[in-house]
């Protein structure tokens, strides 16, 4: 007997006959679409978890990137709008770069798939303007650019918008730990600096 059949057989006999009655799940909590997105709340939540927030008009994104990463080397996904990047940064497009090469750059600039106001979360789904997961992991500075209309109110709203078959990374502030006396400390293995640029 395979272990698969053994385990499934154990579980069926554990449940017995007749099977426990089916359960109706009460979904009386706020579902997707119940709450309007509040960009000011999103900014407040991001700031509370030590992300740096910049709000600007779309043409000014390059200026913000210059302020944060000017003079440094930056990896970008292949589909990133080039007008977000100032001349002052040394741009390294990700063309399946070796891991060591990605680890050596100073920063990364990406877009996002969706963002959650209530929790201060940005969600990346590996789209062309977000790239492979590794490029937002190894550089120490992550600049994430998103439009205000990409901000949704709640976690249910965000889950309804993303595709489970894509690799998803939910990011809420810079890398942190609560492992020393259960106090939150920012800056462990992931990027220690998270900048979120919100365009109108």
């Amino acid at each position, binding site marked *: *007997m395979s*272990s*698969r*059949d*053994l*385990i*499934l*057989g154990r*579980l069926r*006999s*554990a*449940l*017995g*006959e007749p099977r*426990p009655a*089916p*359960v109706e*799940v*009460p979904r*009386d*909590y706020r*579902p997707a679409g119940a709450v309007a997105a509040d960009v000011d709340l999103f900014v407040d939540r991001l700031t509370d*978890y030590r992300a740096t927030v910049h709000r600007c008009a779309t043409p000014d994104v390059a200026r913000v990137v210059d302020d944060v990463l000017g003079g440094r080397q930056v990896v970008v996904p292949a589909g990133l709008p080039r007008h977000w990047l100032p001349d002052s940064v040394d741009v390294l497009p990700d063309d399946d770069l070796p*891991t060591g090469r990605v*680890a050596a750059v100073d920063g990364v600039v990406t877009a996002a798939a969706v963002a*959650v106001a209530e*929790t*201060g979360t940005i969600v990346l789904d*590996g789209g062309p303007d977000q790239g*492979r*997961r*590794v490029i937002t*992991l190894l550089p120490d500075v992550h600049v994430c650019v998103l439009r205000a209309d990409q901000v949704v109110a709640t*976690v*249910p709203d965000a*889950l*309804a918008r993303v595709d*489970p*078959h*894509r*690799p*998803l*990374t*939910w*990011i*809420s502030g810079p*890398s*942190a*730990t*609560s*492992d*020393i*006396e*259960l106090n*939150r400390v*920012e*800056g*462990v*293995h*992931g990027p220690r600096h998270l900048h979120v640029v919100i365009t109108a």
Partner: protein
Amino acid sequence: MTAPGRPAGATGDGTTFLGMPATAPPGVGHLRGDEPFPAAARRALGDAQLRRNLRHATTTIRDKSGAVIGEVPDWQELRAAGRAIKTDTMARLPELLEQLAAAVTAAGGTVHWAADAVEANRIVADLVRATGADRVMKVKSMATQEIGLNEALEAAGIEPVETDLAELIVQLGRDKPSHILVPAIHRNRAEIREIFLREMPGVDPGLTDEPAALAAAARRHLRETFLSTRVAVSGANFAVAETGTVAVVESEGNGRMCLTLPETLITVMGIEKVIPTWRDLEVFLQLLPRASTGERMNPYTSMWTGVTPGDGPQQVHLVLLDNGRSAVLADEVGRQALHCIRCSACLNVCPVYERTGGHAYGSVYPGPIGAVLSPQLTGVADNASLPYASSLCGACYDACPVMIDIPSILVHLRAEAPHPRAEAATMAAAAYTMDHPALYAAAQRGARLARLAGPRGRGLPPPLSGWTASRDLPAPPPQTFREWWVER
């Protein structure tokens, strides 16, 4: 090995057939302690530093968690939904696991089934060996601690490297985890600094005990490991049957490193972690961080569905682990222990845990949830003292984000634990006495006389001394209520 309860398939004459629910085998993994809880707890209570560390940490997390839960207007509705989803999951567990396995396979992953710890350890070691690697990096995972995977890998000549900060502290300190979420909760910053200075090669001798400095030291220490290790082992917080998606919730980025950088990813998951639908994540992703670390959302959550060409590990394995879970499922009262999402809120509110710490429970699952989960996974006889490691105050039930009724399971398991014959005889005699008023009055007078035999708190003589080992006998009043009533 026996299963609690009387599931269908039990023949009633003591024989079993393959497919009967089975408890976790002894001799492997970390579900059984070396000594009963009262003995271990007594020693822990004598450690003043441990009690200070625990009190500080649990007070901090209770305050944080309470504040962010207070921000959510529909917290009780989310809890009710979480409980119902888990109840539904357990009722359909075999079918959901088959659905999950099919979805993961369709997405390019490979599914393995492990009946117990021995088989899971062998599967993982064989998979690592097949890659030619002699080192794996690990994301913190309760399931792999439960089965003793690190010891099994070492025995197979493979070095496991824990990458979670608290697990690293435990591993470097050759220590044991004492909390589900923060395995090094029993260590304060000064102790962590000492461990790093002693055990971390190339560490800055001027390292301070500032938490930020300690975290930075861990970052430097593990960076090269992340970049060069070709195989990672993780656990799973959730796996979605409908889509085959696996989710890992973490803070530091060590999880993202392990889930993204290696060529091969092996995830070991208890079978109860499956959830039916993608939408169900909207409940648990709200409940878990607020109940667990007291954050609105943990810094990083990774979700993957099989293999994504060109992004992340190209060899993705999922090991589905039973190891006693089928035996838990067989108990109609106890099966809700399988609803646990490992947030550790019940530990943080428990007056017993706060004083004894996690090591006293013997199992990798400490605290209130451990007191109901460990005895069921091993069979109650192997963890017979744990159902008593509680004052039944109910704080755990109130704190649980999926509303597991831990006190009721504790009482249920106490009834299943082996009891000395003298206790049953005494209880039967007491019941008879209370049924007969004249006898009862005589017994009350007798109890008062018994005071002459010794001061209050001495306890009962053997064989009843077990009952009073952790309880004081109440002092009988000088006048009973009945005597007072007659005088009026």
